[in-house]
């Protein structure tokens, strides 16, 4: 566990303590800190931080949900934790594609796919054959290339045809 993980865990522990002693001002301050960190990590796409924040949010939510006879104020913070966790999960489920130069860097699967498509549109299995990569490698590269706008794809019956965006 790195220093940030420990620090986030401490925020979570302090949040639960504050809720336990019904110190709502401190509880809300801790929640606000977590929310600010979550937004900052989302904007900067810091995946490890988002993962650590997800663990803290889930841990605090679980602990609070297991409390016997929670009051209205507890439930209010439980809802806020849930909203925070949902936002973190949504952020973790999305990734900005890497810049074009990274995707096309020599030696990468993306570069091999782009090079193969220079000769014209190709289906996924044709790309596997043309690049010598495995189906998993080609399948792993295509979604990011599409999202980055480097290639476009269209269906041909059950197949998917891929082409360079410029062609």
């Amino acid at each position, binding site marked *: 566990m790195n220093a940030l993980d420990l620090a986030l865990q401490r925020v979570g522990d302090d949040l639960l303590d504050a809720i336990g002693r019904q110190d709502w001002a401190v509880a809300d301050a801790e929640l606000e800190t977590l929310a600010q960190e979550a937004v900052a990590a989302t904007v900067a796409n810091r995946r490890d931080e988002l993962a650590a924040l997800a663990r803290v949010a889930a841990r605090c939510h679980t602990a609070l949900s297991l409390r016997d006879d929670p009051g209205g104020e507890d439930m209010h913070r439980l809802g806020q934790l849930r909203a925070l966790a949902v936002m973190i999960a949504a952020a973790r489920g999305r990734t900005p594609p890497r810049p074009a130069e990274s995707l096309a860097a020599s030696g990468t699967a993306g570069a091999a796919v782009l090079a193969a498509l220079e000769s014209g549109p190709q289906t996924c299995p044709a790309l596997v054959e043309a690049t010598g990569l495995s189906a998993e490698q080609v399948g792993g590269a295509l979604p990011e290339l599409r999202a980055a706008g480097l290639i476009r794809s269209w*269906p041909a019956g059950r197949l*998917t*045809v891929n082409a360079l965006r410029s062609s």
Partner: protein
Amino acid sequence: MQHPADLFMELWRRLQARRDEVRTLAQGLEADHARAGRLADEAAERLRHGVPALEDWTGSWLDRILAAAQAIDAWFAPLVSRYDFRADAPLPAERLEARRRLNRDGRFNADPADGQLILRPGLLARAMNIRETAPPGSDPDAFDPVDLFTNLLVVPPFLTIGAEREGDSERRIAVEYRRLAMVSDQDPGDPAWKPVIGVVPLAEAEDDLAIHQFRRDGEDWYDPAPRDVSRRAADAVAGLAARGANFILFPEVSAGPETVSAIQQALRAQAVGGPIRYALVGVREVVAGRPRNRAILLDRCGRMAGSQTKLHCWDLDGDQCRSYDLRDRNGRLLDCAREDIGTGDRFTLFDLPDLGRLAVAICEDLGRTEPSAWIASGMMVDWLVTPVMDSGLTTERWQAKEGGESSRAGSCRVIVANSMALSHRFNRYCRTNGEEDMVIEDCGVALLFQPRASQAGAPHIACLTLPLSDPAPGYVCARWTPGDWPALSGPESEGGE
């Protein structure tokens, strides 16, 4: 506002009604990528102007109907992709409505009578359908209209499945896609995620899972009854939590009410800081006076998140009765024995945060045509879990054959979880009949299958065992690292029973 999802359902119905023509059309487009591209571009352009524009353009031309449905399928792609699309997204209000419907109703379409239109990707948000990697035209009979769409799948409201018993008529069961909204801290689509799977056989000794036999209506019946092994179950949950397990499984009918309660408490004890996110427990319950063979899904806190009731009975023939040493009260070996359960009338696909899409096929349900064929056709799940009650699992027996088939189809990960009680009965039979070489010493309690990624690859399998004579610590677990597992041999070399 007419929503693209509702137009898709209309188009899907029209394609289904003209299946043979659609197959011919699809094969033609697969050979003419330029024509397919022109149709796709035109349909996408119409969709940019709204659903009515696309509908008007479609008319009754089959190629336009298919192109329009595929354009809508492509419009849903950003909801499937792990990556943010840089291109502008048309119809933003409709996209918001799509998210609302999925989160609120568990489907994109408005009318529940049509079933549920959901996102198709399974196997942890797959990027390529293995069926695409087959050589073109290799099997002209293998056409499946589901494969015309990569992002959307229609879950039908009903499915026809085989008879409960030989001689009975086919049945219709409800099909349901259930999306569980829970706070989660694991993204199952993360390619780096390697979950730890734990299996607890629970029934270790023969008496832990008594097989009651009785006669009714002139026939022999059997009814397994698990012993209370609460302490063992709780210790196993704690032990697996210490080993970092994320998903733990208890075999078919291995737990009664007291044991389930102990499992729930043990899960709750680890909920805040522990790693276990879900447990699937095979239970025997009595509902309205009839035994039910069910698998219950518990969340990290031990709360019931869902259940699946066994759909088909496992009636034993004479050979199986001999193998499991099933005798009547006079000590006579039975010629056949029927499973005394009330079968389920619903099949559920669970979409679970922290784990992914899960389907449960209890023992006999794995081997029957449906819903297994529908799952394999749709390729929409990540995990297919089969709790069984059988003698030791091996890489040659029927469970491996069925799991292997699914893995070869590239559909999903398969886990088979077994108890140990019947292995003692099997060994007694072997020893009585001088078949010492068949005696089970290391009892297979879990089979883990990783599907192949392409037609050229092979699935991988791990078989986890416990010594029958000393099953301590009473559980097995393995991290999902199929690269370290042996490749599964081809179907021609498989045995089975």
